[in-house]
């Protein structure tokens, strides 16, 4: 029963080449006229073919293939999982924070511009709280810009935008300071400078910040996608390795009537463990990343969009007053912006459209819904105050309109706008936390898998060698 059931060895192909063991005829073969030199590949093939004739030879080949498959599975798993873990780490530690930074940079710039216009409207001594707010915005923007620059190199698509922002920000602040100086002198030139600064902001800085956010978000998408992509090659190699191990054991069983070969069995267990670990860990990582997208990123995107819209609407509201009768297009832009953010006000009722309503639908828990609901309620108040201010201005009560829009106090457009912002800030912070938590869960699911897969592969390979070696020893 030690002979293979396949019977006679396969006939060698022409030209007949002797097996290495048939030494007596090897001399004759040299004499055979044929190709004068043989390639190493051909030699190898011949040698294998010769080895395949006998059972020990076959066993050696089978052993080598099994070891290669088990090790390859370990290596491919370690490599593919490391790649995904690195991508998940990039999501958590780099691209998500940078994307959030870019969104926050845009907000700081837009808020600085709106605040500058508001301080101008207030007239006379600018209110210190507005001045402080403007300065805080500019400080934060510089900080975020420095961070973005430190995390970017010339090959990044966002690099050009960072350069542009770095160049334009001091120009903008210079114009605003010139406006202040002229205002203090009582010269209308200050207002002209402020308009010019606002133009620079809208035409240069904000588009650059928007583009930077787009690039950073694209990078986040990319990392996110890379982290959740299935390790197909590793899975395939694992299945092939397991199948090969199974086949080898069945062959062994058929030939020896023994049920188990311990070495091969150990290799099978090691390989199966790796495969199951891979499937489970990647499944978990994927679910974590999917959650981060479903519960965090999507909400964040809508909230960021809403926040941008709110800031733009506030800027339009201020500019309507700055233009003093000549601001019809700003008023239109305000209305369009508020419709986009909070939907169409149908007889005072929200109609459920608009970015905030969408953000509310996307928020998955009470903690996420409450601040959005607060923001939505504040937009109603804001719209009411805005309408009143418009009526006041059209009625010739310009000063009252200005007081209602930019004045301090609890029941003004400014306080309503601040409440909308506060709600959005809280919601964004919450969703940010949700995102980070889920993404970290995803990243941590892959922890230890590359090292484990490597160790188990070595274990499996040792098992194969021992198992095959045991069979081979029966031939000595």
């Amino acid at each position, binding site marked *: 029963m030690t002979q293979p059931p396949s019977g006679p060895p396969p006939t060698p192909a022409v030209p007949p080449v002797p097996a290495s063991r048939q030494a007596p005829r090897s001399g004759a073969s040299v004499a055979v006229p044929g190709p004068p030199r043989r390639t190493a590949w051909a030699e190898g093939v011949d040698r294998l073919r010769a080895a395949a004739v006998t059972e020990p030879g076959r066993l050696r080949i089978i052993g080598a293939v099994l070891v290669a498959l088990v090790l390859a599975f370990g290596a491919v798993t370690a490599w593919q999982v490391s790649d995904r873990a690195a991508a998940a780490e990039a999501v958590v530690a780099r691209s998500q924070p940078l994307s959030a930074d870019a969104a926050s940079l845009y907000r700081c710039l837009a808020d600085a511009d709106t605040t500058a216009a508001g301080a101008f409207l207030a007239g006379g001594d600018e209110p210190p709280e507005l001045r402080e707010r403007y300065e805080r915005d500019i400080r934060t923007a510089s900080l975020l810009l420095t961070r973005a620059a430190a995390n970017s190199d010339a090959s990044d698509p966002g690099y050009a935008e960072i350069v542009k922002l770095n160049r334009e920000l001091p120009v903008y602040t210079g114009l605003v300071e010139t406006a202040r100086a002229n205002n203090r002198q009582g010269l209308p*030139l200050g*207002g002209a400078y402020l308009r010019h600064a606002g133009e620079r902001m809208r035409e240069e800085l904000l588009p650059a910040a928007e583009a930077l956010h787009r690039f950073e978000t694209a990078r986040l998408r990319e990392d996110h996608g890379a982290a959740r992509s299935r390790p197909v090659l590793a899975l395939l190699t694992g299945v092939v390795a397991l199948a090969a191990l199974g086949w080898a054991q069945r062959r062994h069983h058929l030939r020896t009537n023994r049920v188990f070969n311990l070495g091969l069995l150990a290799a099978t267990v090691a390989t199966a463990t790796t495969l199951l670990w891979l499937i489970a860990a990647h499944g978990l990582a994927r679910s974590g990343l999917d959650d981060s997208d479903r519960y965090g990123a999507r909400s964040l995107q809508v909230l960021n969009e809403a926040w941008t819209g709110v800031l733009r609407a506030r800027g339009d509201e201020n500019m309507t007053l700055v233009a003093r*009768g*000549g601001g019809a297009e700003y008023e239109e832009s305000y209305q369009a912006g508020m419709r986009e953010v909070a939907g169409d006000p149908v007889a005072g009722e929200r109609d459920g459209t608009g970015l905030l309503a969408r953000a509310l639908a996307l928020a998955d828990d009470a903690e996420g819904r409450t601040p959005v609901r607060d923001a939505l309620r504040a937009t109603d108040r804001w719209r009411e105050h805005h309408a009143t201010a418009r009526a006041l201005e059209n009625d010739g009560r310009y000063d009252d309109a200005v007081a209602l829009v930019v004045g301090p106090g609890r029941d003004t457009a400014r306080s309503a706008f601040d409440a909308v912002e506060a709600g959005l800030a809280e919601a964004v912070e919450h969703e940010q936390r949700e995102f980070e938590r889920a993404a970290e869960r995803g990243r941590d699911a892959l922890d230890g898998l590359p090292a484990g897969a490597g160790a188990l592969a070595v274990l499996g390979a040792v098992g194969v060698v021992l198992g095959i070696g045991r069979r081979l020893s029966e031939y000595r």
Partner: protein
Amino acid sequence: MSLGGLVLSVAMLLWTVPATGTPARPAADGDRAAGRGPGAARTSPAAERETCADGRDPAESLRPSNEAGPAVERVRRAGRLVVGVDQNSYLWGYRDPSSGDIVGFDIDLVKAIAKDLLGDDPEIVYKTVPTDRRIPAVQRREVDMVVRTMSITCARLKEVAFSTAYFEAGQQILAPRSSSITGFDETLRGKRLCTAAGSTAQTLLEKDDGGAEPVYVDNQLDCLVRLQLGEVDAVMTDSALAAGQAAQDPSVRLVGDPLTVEPYGVAMHREDEDLVRRVNKVLDDYRRGGENSPWMAAYKRWLADKMEVAEPAPPAPAYRDR
């Protein structure tokens, strides 16, 4: 009133239709010679004074009258006067950054008109209008009148009605003191010259830019911003507005002679004849009194320190109806 209206409409008909057969009237008449105002004192003989196709002076308006017609009644019923003004023309109509109020020479005139129409302590709604929105604002009745350093021109007379002239200025060049530009001449060739879109300067430059490269902005004051930032080399605007710019920046000055003589008028809707007459009546009172006239008071308050005029005086009114 009815006879006057008839005469007026005939006169307007004659005046709007270019007189083909009648010989053109001589360019200078008594009214005009007497009408040399503050701007005129610096005017070189080369400065052009516009003459319309019928040979008449565009600054000719309707005879003053105190009678209240439909337009005056409308303003009274509303209880307030809605005026298109500027908030960027220093000394003329500008927002005082410390108070937030709109003040200036134009605004003093607005107050006089409002007081006459509505009595003491009148309610005035100021609407700021960009230069190129002045005519549409009047035509669509978004405002009752525009008092905004608006030059009376033949072309504009086809779209709105004007009061008699209350000031005279001319287009001039404003350049940095260190600049080589000496006026609207060859020194401007290839230079970037800024002016407000929809201003008379734009009309002038579109006819002949003298080799300069025109830059149009919303507001004449935006030109000073660009000049200070080095984005343009010179500004073209009324001598009156230019004086306001120079007053805000001592490093720029007016160069060369005024190119035109442009009378400023109050713009109103063409159908509001009674309002035009009423405003002309107010202007009559405003000019009257020599050194002690309200006009002189406003001049001294806003312009005297900033304009180099030897003998400031309001331009004399000219009328096209008898």
